[in-house]
């Protein structure tokens, strides 16, 4: 690591990896910081009770359970100090590549209407629902870059039912799985349009790496063939290949440093030197924060100074508000025949019939079939109400229903509210003495109403497909975040109701940027990662243009 760079990028996930690559390929010297480690497929392991899908006893990709607490205020106002694997912590993988190392890799574009939510629906009382400062058309070229440069498999014609698209996908869709024809037929009989689920997984060899080998453990784990595309095997290697980018892992940014005028001049971090954690300050012409919606907020809030007493980007107490992930709704049913052949990813077909235009509710969400479930996850969540979970009947239930199960689910587009918050709790510190985040708030009632609406459609889809004993479950009003965390430093033109401009540059600064889900004004009724990637390409290009 050198003492100064053109740019420091904090975080190597979906956003940070791309910005590092764009800047390095444009000739800038870049320091890419990652608080976690670089992990191989084997190091991530296949532990069924310690992963991001079933994390009862821990997770496989950081942070470590000790020394990284967060404070969570529950809906009753009670304060909890949590470990990373506990509910309410809202962890995302802290590892090189971030969530992209172990994600399911669904590669959705947000819909054109998702960028204009307030214009279409108005702003419900108590919400902060707004339009984006950019349109779908402005982001479309960057979606295309993400699809081609990271690598997405899907069908252009079928996707074009839902989005204006200029260029096909670089790879054909993943092969059919047993639920796809069954669910397609049922949807079409209901008059619903469907499409194969786009995934950041190679359906055929691509960009010098192998195709998917259908191990069936995409989500929560790394990929045995390296055919799942994330920052760690696409843009970070490209950044490193320029010779201009230094990637430093196990480096925890503590604060963004400013000079006596309040101008950003670099980052102070805790970094492992000779196996010991030590503080080091590195200077840079510009800093890009890509820690995810929760940790990005923490870093900015911890960067206080006389010029910035509330932290950077927080002049109007707007940083850290509007935290949103996704409320998920779904339904489960059991078919006559097996719906399982062991070949992953599992998720195969979706409908976007209900993302907009639904009577009486604001927005909506997509529905898709679920990834292959680990047996213990099926045991944990696959039993309908009243079905006994012990005894011979439970064993028979597992034996009979595991392979016949279809689970349809989807993320509800949340209606953001400013009381869903990330703040810093100065009384609780991590292992390095850095104050940790405090999460508080709940979802807006309008989100809950959409969830109730969408749940009925999931039920209808399964029943129409011929599923027996179809059942569903309710949702809570609790805060969401976790892997889909977004919204805490939204883009906008109103400096009092946003944190960055439409290019991800923090208001009031000419050299401080954000590139992660924090920027999202709204978070779509679908998985947000492709939008994080598209924005990161755009933020990166904006920085390059401003650097000339």
């Amino acid at each position, binding site marked *: 690591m050198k003492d100064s760079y053109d740019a420091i990028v904090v975080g190597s996930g979906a956003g940070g990896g791309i910005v590092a690559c764009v800047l390095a390929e444009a000739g800038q010297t870049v320091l890419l910081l990652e608080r976690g480690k670089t992990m191989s497929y084997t190091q991530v392991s296949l532990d*069924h009770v310690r992963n991001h899908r079933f994390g009862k006893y821990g997770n496989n990709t950081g942070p470590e359970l000790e020394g990284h607490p967060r404070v969570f205020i529950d809906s009753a106002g009670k304060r909890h100090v949590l470990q990373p694997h506990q509910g309410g912590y809202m962890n995302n993988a802290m590892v090189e590549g971030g969530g992209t190392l172990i994600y399911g890799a669904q590669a959705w574009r947000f819909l054109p209407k998702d960028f204009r939510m307030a214009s279409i629906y108005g702003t419900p009382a108590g919400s902060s629902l707004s339009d984006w400062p950019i349109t779908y058309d402005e982001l479309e070229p960057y979606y295309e870059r993400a699809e081609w440069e990271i690598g997405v498999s899907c069908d252009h014609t079928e996707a074009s039912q839902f989005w204006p698209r200029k260029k096909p996908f670089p790879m054909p869709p993943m092969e059919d799985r047993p639920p796809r024809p069954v669910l397609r037929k049922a949807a079409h009989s209901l008059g619903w349009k469907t499409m194969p689920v786009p995934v950041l997984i190679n359906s055929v060899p691509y960009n010098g790496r192998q195709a998917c080998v259908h191990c069936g453990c995409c989500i929560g784990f790394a990929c*045995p063939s390296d055919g799942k595309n994330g920052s760690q095997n696409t843009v970070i290697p490209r950044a490193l290949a320029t010779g201009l980018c230094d990637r430093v892992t196990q480096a925890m940014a503590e604060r963004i440093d400013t000079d006596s005028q309040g101008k950003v001049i670099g980052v102070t971090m805790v970094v492992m030197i000779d196996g010991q954690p030590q503080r080091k300050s590195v200077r840079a012409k510009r800093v890009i924060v890509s820690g995810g919606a929760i940790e990005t907020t923490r870093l900015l809030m911890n960067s206080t100074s006389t010029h910035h007493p509330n932290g950077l980007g927080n002049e109007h107490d707007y940083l850290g508000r509007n935290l949103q992930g996704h409320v998920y709704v779904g339904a489960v049913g059991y078919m006559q025949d097996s719906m399982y052949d*062991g070949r992953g990813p599992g998720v195969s077909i979706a409908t976007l019939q209900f993302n907009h235009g639904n009577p009486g509710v604001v927005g909506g969400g997509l529905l898709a079939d679920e990834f292959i479930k680990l*047996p213990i996850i099926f045991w944990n969540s696959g039993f309908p109400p009243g079905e006994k979970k*012990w*005894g*011979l009947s439970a064993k028979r239930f597992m*034996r009979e229903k*595991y392979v016949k199960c279809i689970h349809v689910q989807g993320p509800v587009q949340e209606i953001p509210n400013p009381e869903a918050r990330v703040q810093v709790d100065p009384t609780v510190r991590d292992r390095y003495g850095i104050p940790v985040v405090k999460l508080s708030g709940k979802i807006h009632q309008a989100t809950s109403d959409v969830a109730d609406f969408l749940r009925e459609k999931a039920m209808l889809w399964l029943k129409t497909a011929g599923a027996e004993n179809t059942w569903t479950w309710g949702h809570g009003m609790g805060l969401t975040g976790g892997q889909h965390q977004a919204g805490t430093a939204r883009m906008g033109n109103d400096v009092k109701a946003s944190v960055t401009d439409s290019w991800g540059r923090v208001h009031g600064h000419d050299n401080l940027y954000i590139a992660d889900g924090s920027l999202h004004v709204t978070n779509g009724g679908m998985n947000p990662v492709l939008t994080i990637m598209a924005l990161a390409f755009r933020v990166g290009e904006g920085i390059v243009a401003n650097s000339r």
Partner: protein
Amino acid sequence: MKSILIAVIDRIIPADDFPSASQAGVMNYLARQFVGDAQQWAEPIETGLESLDAQARQKSACGFAELPAEKQDELLASIESERFFEELVALTSEGFYADTGNGGNFGEISWKMIGYLPREKGDLE
């Protein structure tokens, strides 16, 4: 205590043409968890099992482990919403259905039973 624990987990997942919980290695899983990630449950579960055994002795001439299966099931049904038992059901099922690397599910027998195909390396194998 060990004999009561075995008796209880073998009613949580009894033998049929596939093994019971203890036959599939769940005791091995529990032994690891009770000194590891689930150590906070070791004591409540032990206390709960002692109480269960006392109830068995109150109602009959023998302890829980010696009761016939249907009497054991009756007794367990009467305490099934007690927190220690709910947790023991979860732990037993984890030991039975999770990966063998955690100590249970000998020979991936539960996966064979339900039809789950572990494809660690997928088509690379």
